[in-house]
């Protein structure tokens, strides 16, 4: 079994993040709080509750070196939490947004963080030592709709964003005084803050979940039309591939190596995509077990009933699955998976452990050690 640990923390979880030593998990149980649970002797105990936001916390990220938590919420605010003594102390970050904040991520060097919002803007926040506060610089141009996901390139300067306008964009977030111009880095260090490096127009519907490969050479993002997009050689002449798949759309993606991507979404079951030697990406398989009913329609739970009614019109027999109708679709998760987080060493190029959280309120830890066929792809 690829799923090594499953825990039901709440009726519904919007997002989660892990502490640097992986002993604690922070998540939002679909309200304005952040709960931190600690694993002690195989039992999860509630350690802290962070209460500062007024509305749903839509994004949490826990930096691994500085041990800081950043949270963003639909209340248009962001807090950076520092652990002092035995308490988490919040510092308000004024984002200057007039719409909800939707996602957040610490940069690789943890000196900046990016926030995507419904205000069609991205906020890049950095710490100003002299004034002892976090300053927000806005990227106001370019996006035509909500920014659903942000992802930092390993060089700490490039940021990829996805939006409900269907496009994936890459920006430079170079900030004088925070970033240093690296003469070896090439074109990315010549760009000004907020300059758009690339716009990818591959999707005809909402785009979610973007992630960079460990080297920063490849980008992957998903579209709501059950498609995942892979872009190699991100730069002036990128190579894009559209992979359309059979099942329900994805919401988030994670590169676990240069050639393997895990996608999670409405099928409640992680999907594995891999690139072959020639660089062609394709769907490999689902990670968890799929429940297939032995007879009757191929779709479990809510779909067989709906399809039964739909096709019943054309005089086909309606197969009544009976008790099976109430069983879960995917296996481990019972509802859409919205968040996938790596569990390896920060910055490592291959990850074999990661966790997922979903609208079913579960956090599941997956380990690929037992998945021989997939280890070969890594």
């Amino acid at each position, binding site marked *: 079994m690829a799923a090594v640990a499953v825990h039901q923390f709440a009726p519904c979880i919007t997002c989660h993040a892990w502490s640097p030593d992986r002993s604690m998990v922070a998540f939002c149980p679909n309200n304005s709080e952040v709960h931190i649970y600690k694993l002690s002797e195989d039992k999860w105990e509630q350690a802290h509750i962070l209460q500062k936001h007024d509305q749903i916390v839509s994004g949490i990220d826990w930096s691994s070196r500085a041990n800081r938590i950043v949270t963003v919420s639909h209340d248009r605010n962001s807090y950076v939490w520092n652990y002092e003594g035995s308490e988490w102390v919040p510092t308000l970050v004024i984002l200057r947004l007039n719409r909800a904040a939707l996602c957040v991520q610490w940069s690789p060097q943890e000196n900046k963080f990016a926030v995507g919002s419904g205000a069609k803007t991205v906020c890049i926040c950095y710490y100003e030592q002299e004034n002892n506060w976090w300053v927000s610089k806005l990227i106001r141009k370019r996006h035509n709709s909500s920014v659903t996901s942000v992802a930092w390139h390993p060089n700490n300067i490039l940021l990829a964003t996805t939006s409900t306008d269907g496009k994936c964009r890459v920006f430079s977030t170079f900030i004088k005084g925070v970033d240093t111009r690296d003469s070896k880095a090439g074109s990315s260090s010549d760009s000004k803050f907020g300059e758009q490096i690339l716009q990818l127009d591959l999707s005809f519907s909402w785009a979610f979940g973007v992630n960079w490969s460990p080297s920063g050479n490849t980008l992957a993002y998903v579209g709501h039309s059950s498609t995942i997009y892979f872009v190699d050689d991100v730069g002036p002449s990128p190579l894009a591939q559209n992979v359309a798949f059979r099942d329900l759309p994805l919401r988030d993606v994670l590169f676990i190596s240069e050639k393997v991507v895990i996608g999670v979404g409405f099928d409640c079951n992680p999907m594995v995509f891999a690139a072959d030697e020639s660089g062609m990406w394709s769907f490999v398989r689902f990670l968890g077990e799929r429940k297939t009913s032995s007879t009757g329609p191929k779709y479990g739970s809510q779909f067989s009933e709906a399809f039964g009614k739909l096709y019943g*019109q054309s005089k086909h027999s309606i197969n009544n699955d009976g008790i099976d109708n109430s069983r879960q679709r995917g296996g481990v998760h019972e509802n859409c998976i919205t968040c996938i987080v790596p569990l390896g060493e920060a910055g490592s190029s291959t990850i074999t452990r990661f966790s997922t959280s979903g609208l079913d309120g579960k956090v599941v830890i997956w380990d690929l050690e037992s998945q021989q066929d997939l280890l070969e792809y890594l």
Partner: protein
Amino acid sequence: MMAATVDFVEADNAEAIISRIEHKSRKIESLLKQSRPVEALKTALEGSPPNTRDERCKSANWIVVHRAIMAIKDLDALFSSLDPEYYDILMKYLYRGLSTGDRPTCDQCLRIHERLTERAGLGCILRSLADTMNTV
């Protein structure tokens, strides 16, 4: 003056598309006479003009695809020879068919929809619903 020129070009393009569709229609009639409904459907689906906004072109193509869809009798034969690249565009036309409300059309589209979903998966349905740019 400039706007008028642009419209003129668009209309011209539409005329070209419609005449291609008429040509296709004759080919399809001949394929149907030879009892080759699967090829007729493939021909109808090929070169569907999704990136024109012109409703006349879309309607003209729909009439041709509808003719081919209604002529399908053997679903097993259809799915054993229809290439997967046609699945998404066929699904879009099935939904257009279902939206007509016409009983025979809906019955046929429903019949094909069931098998197509089995073959192509729910993702195919998603692609026809989520794509608001390339409509049929």
